[in-house]
């Protein structure tokens, strides 16, 4: 099973890499526009020369078959979720149901203009209302805005809500607390929202260090941003005490929903005491990741935060006939818009379809199996031949993901976590998240999700065992990996030192 490490190039590796700008020929084209069917006026009369473009943008000159072949070839240089296991921690790479693309493409959804008047968009508004209601129920927080475009955008909205809440009470605060295990987006968001970050430590069990939190929770603190389970994949059992500490100093508690896939239908952020939650519809709710978006980051909030929600929000009014849905923009205390139009509606369609398919029971089942799969894979990776090189730093069951440390592997076999990850590429799996969270030495963060089969998890453990066994004999094999991918290990330092950020033309 061990993939070849000899240097016979694959066909893909021999292919010359050309961009679309390097293909084609002068005068070649793909588009043919409709005929000019109106009386033609001199261009100068319509657009004075001083506004006209002097040199035409050097776009490609290619035919349609050329474009299709170019991008299909490019596509084959990507690894994807439909081709293999993708246990990227904190990213929830679960299967993306095919139904969702079909329903999102229906013209009534896909060709609906965002300024269509509400009476002509009742289906879309009802869908948004249904999604808002479902997300509010899942979060245990009833007031929802679907507007933010991604997780970090939901975080920004959430911290701005916190600011609005405090300012409305005449209470200027300047600090937001984030645990040292937090996603990088949390502290980055805090700075953008005009607050200062203060870190909170992690205790020996992987949870928030309560003493450290008590010391730092003062009346200058606006908010604590937390994810639970946290980025170590551990549920913090002290959550009620954490909420009390935060609320006692008048601060808000923010829930980073990146890890919601562990607890749907099992436990709700609202019931834990969180005031504001963002969802990643591209994680728990199956929006395909698209190689880096689109996503969607709706937020759900408690009663005291509700007046400040971003606009627009969808309302429902009962009438004698069917209920009527509307978009409301004029909420007097709203923080305002955080983007154009209503949000990423196409993503809402897919998330809503997913919730309709699963229902409440199905969502809970999905989370339970996500937890089961993670614990099963964790158990397999503690077995002989693996566990002595990849340690599991916290001796408790994990939730939907878990960390292992490549520290022993580095010391005893002489390969780093990066090398292990790169060698996995030759075996046709996507490596886990590496070097995050930073507090774990040579960290791997592994999230298998509920949609993987038992056989896939076992095959992955087998691959890890093989790579470790191989490294015991020949560590340079992993250090020089990968061998079979379209390109071999890439020089990232070169790219940063001498940036080439576009094709010279």
């Amino acid at each position, binding site marked *: 099973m061990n993939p070849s490490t000899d240097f016979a190039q694959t066909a893909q590796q021999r292919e010359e890499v050309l961009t679309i700008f390097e293909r084609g020929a002068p005068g070649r084209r793909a588009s043919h526009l409709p005929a000019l069917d109106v009386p033609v006026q001199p261009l100068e009369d319509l657009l004075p020369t001083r506004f006209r473009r002097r040199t035409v943008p050097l776009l490609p000159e290619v035919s349609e078959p050329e474009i299709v072949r170019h991008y299909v070839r490019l596509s084959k240089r*990507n690894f994807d979720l439909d081709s293999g296991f993708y246990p990227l921690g904190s990213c929830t790479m679960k299967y993306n149901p095919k139904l969702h693309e079909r329903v999102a493409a229906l013209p009534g959804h896909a060709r609906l203009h965002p300024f269509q008047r509400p009476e002509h968009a009742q289906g879309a508004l009802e869908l948004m209302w249904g999604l808002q209601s479902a997300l509010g129920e899942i979060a245990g927080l009833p007031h929802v805005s679907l507007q933010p475009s991604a997780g970090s955008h939901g975080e920004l909205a959430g911290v701005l809500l916190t600011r609005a809440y405090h300012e409305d009470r005449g209470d200027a605060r300047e600090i937001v607390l984030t645990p040292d295990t937090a996603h*990088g987006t949390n502290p980055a968001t805090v700075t953008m929202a005009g607050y200062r970050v203060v870190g909170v430590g992690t205790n020996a069990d992987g949870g928030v260090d309560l003493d450290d939190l008590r010391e730092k929770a003062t009346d200058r603190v606006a908010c604590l941003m937390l994810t639970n389970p946290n980025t170590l994949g551990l549920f913090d059992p002290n959550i009620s005490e954490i909420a009390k500490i935060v609320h006692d100093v008048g601060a808000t508690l923010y829930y980073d929903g990146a890890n919601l896939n562990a607890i749907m239908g099992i436990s709700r952020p609202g019931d834990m005491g969180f005031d504001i939650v963002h969802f990643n519809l591209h994680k728990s709710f199956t929006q395909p990741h698209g190689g880096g978006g689109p996503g969607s980051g709706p937020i759900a909030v408690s009663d005291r935060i509700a007046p400040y929600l971003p606009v627009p929000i969808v309302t429902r009014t009962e009438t004698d006939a069917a209920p009527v849905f509307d978009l409301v923009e004029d909420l007097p205390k709203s923080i305002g818009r955080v983007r154009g139009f209503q949000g990423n509606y196409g993503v809402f369609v897919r998330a809503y379809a997913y919730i309709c398919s699963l229902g409440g029971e199905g969502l809970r089942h999905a989370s339970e199996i996500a937890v089961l799969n993670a614990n099963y894979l964790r158990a397999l990776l503690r077995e002989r031949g693996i566990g002595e090189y990849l340690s599991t730093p916290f001796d408790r069951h994990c939730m939907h993901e878990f960390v292992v440390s490549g520290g022993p592997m580095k010391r005893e076999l002489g390969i780093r976590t990066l090398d292990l990850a790169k060698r996995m590429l030759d075996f046709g799996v996507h490596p886990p998240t590496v070097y995050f969270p930073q507090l774990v030495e040579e960290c791997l963060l592994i999230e298998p999700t509920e949609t993987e089969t038992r056989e896939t998890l076992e095959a992955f453990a087998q691959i890890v065992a093989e790579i470790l066994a191989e490294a015991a004999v020949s560590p340079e094999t992993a250090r020089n990996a990968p061998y079979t991918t379209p390109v071999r290990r890439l*020089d990232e330092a070169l790219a940063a030192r001498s940036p080439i950020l576009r094709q010279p033309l």
Partner: protein
Amino acid sequence: MSDYTSLTADDLAQMLATIGVDSIEELLRAIPEDVRMREPLNLPAGRPEQDVFAHLRALAGRNTSADDEITFLGAGMYDHFLPALIESIILRSEFLTPYTPYQPEISQGGLQAMFEYQTAISELTGLPISNASLYEGPSAVASAAYMSKLTNGRPEFVVSRGLHPHARQTLATVAHGWGGRVVEVDLCDGVTDAGDLAALVGPDTCAVIMQQPNFLGAVEDLAPIAAVARAAGAVPICSADPLTLGILEAPGNLGFEIVVGEGQTLGNRLDFGGPSFGFLAASTDHTRRMPGRIAGETRDADGRRGFVLTLQTREQHIRREKATSNICTAQALNALAGVIYLSWLGRVGLPELGELLLQRTAYARTQLAGLPGVAPLHSQPVIREFAVRLDAPVDAVIAACQERGVNPGFALERAYPEYVGGLLVAITEQRSRADIDQLVGVLGEVLAEYAARATGAGVGR
């Protein structure tokens, strides 16, 4: 009611045994009882695929889409034609389902597409550096403003009222967080009043923000405004419609340091407002302050050409609270649609389309202005959209036209109380002369009915 899992009873038993527990419940013991759900989620029961499809189709059927009427709605998103090849490429699993390319050796397709996209955006905007996408137009404006804040630390943004209202509102929301404020410059005969603008720009001005063409469809005279901003040490920012940049001069060639915009017109669906993408390009001075992902060219261990995410020391996952932006997931798939569309349109097609839009829009503008009760709102050159003033209640007129199968456009009063009776009409290449003639006919009828009613009421008094 599929939940897309694959677990059998045998699987469950064996997995629990391997873990060393008797039930899944045991794995959840870290969750204290007092924060556990005691009741199931109050959601409708799961349904089979065909039922879900039927439900979503029924909801779609209650919307009036651009297939269901002849629409002249624009105001930020436009019904341009989407060639079939876009969908056939972006729905491939290899583009649709991967995450952000953290492992470049198995992500060369997506990374090269980003590099090509950056090249295309750089060409369109006339600026050397493009990132790999932002969420959408208005938040891209806010991102450019934050870059300016990182550049000079000043508090005030001088913003044309021709900038899309959603962009102005988004900027105000976001800037409030870091203590920035927004002042607006009024329009005069459809374009930004350059004198008013110059009077507002000063040592507190962080950036000057324009839109081309502006919200009323008018072409702005950009060069003098960039000069005013630069002279004051403020960053000149322009939000531009990329589809018009084959025929309108690139803002980057007119002195603008940051050019942003809404990418929907480049190969993306209307989708009731999203997902589309935002773009952002800048001069090299701003490279280290750029938000979001940027792809760069490099070499592999054997010297082969390859692509990686680069300049990552700007980004949140490395720099945390010192990052230049918090953005992580953006709109890679939509940006891919954008570069495919631009390749399809091509070097000759882009200016050709610009000319087609100019001619058709001019025709529509002339025909509409010939109707009794319709007057041009301004006299500036327009390329794909124009504003008129109706001598009748605009909301009611729109509703009456829609009943006759034509959506005449956007009621300007929704965003500009100063333009009572204002109607913003968008013309894409999908609206033929026959469609325009039908708009003229229907709007003429509706306005005539209003005029008749007004006269009748007058007689009665």
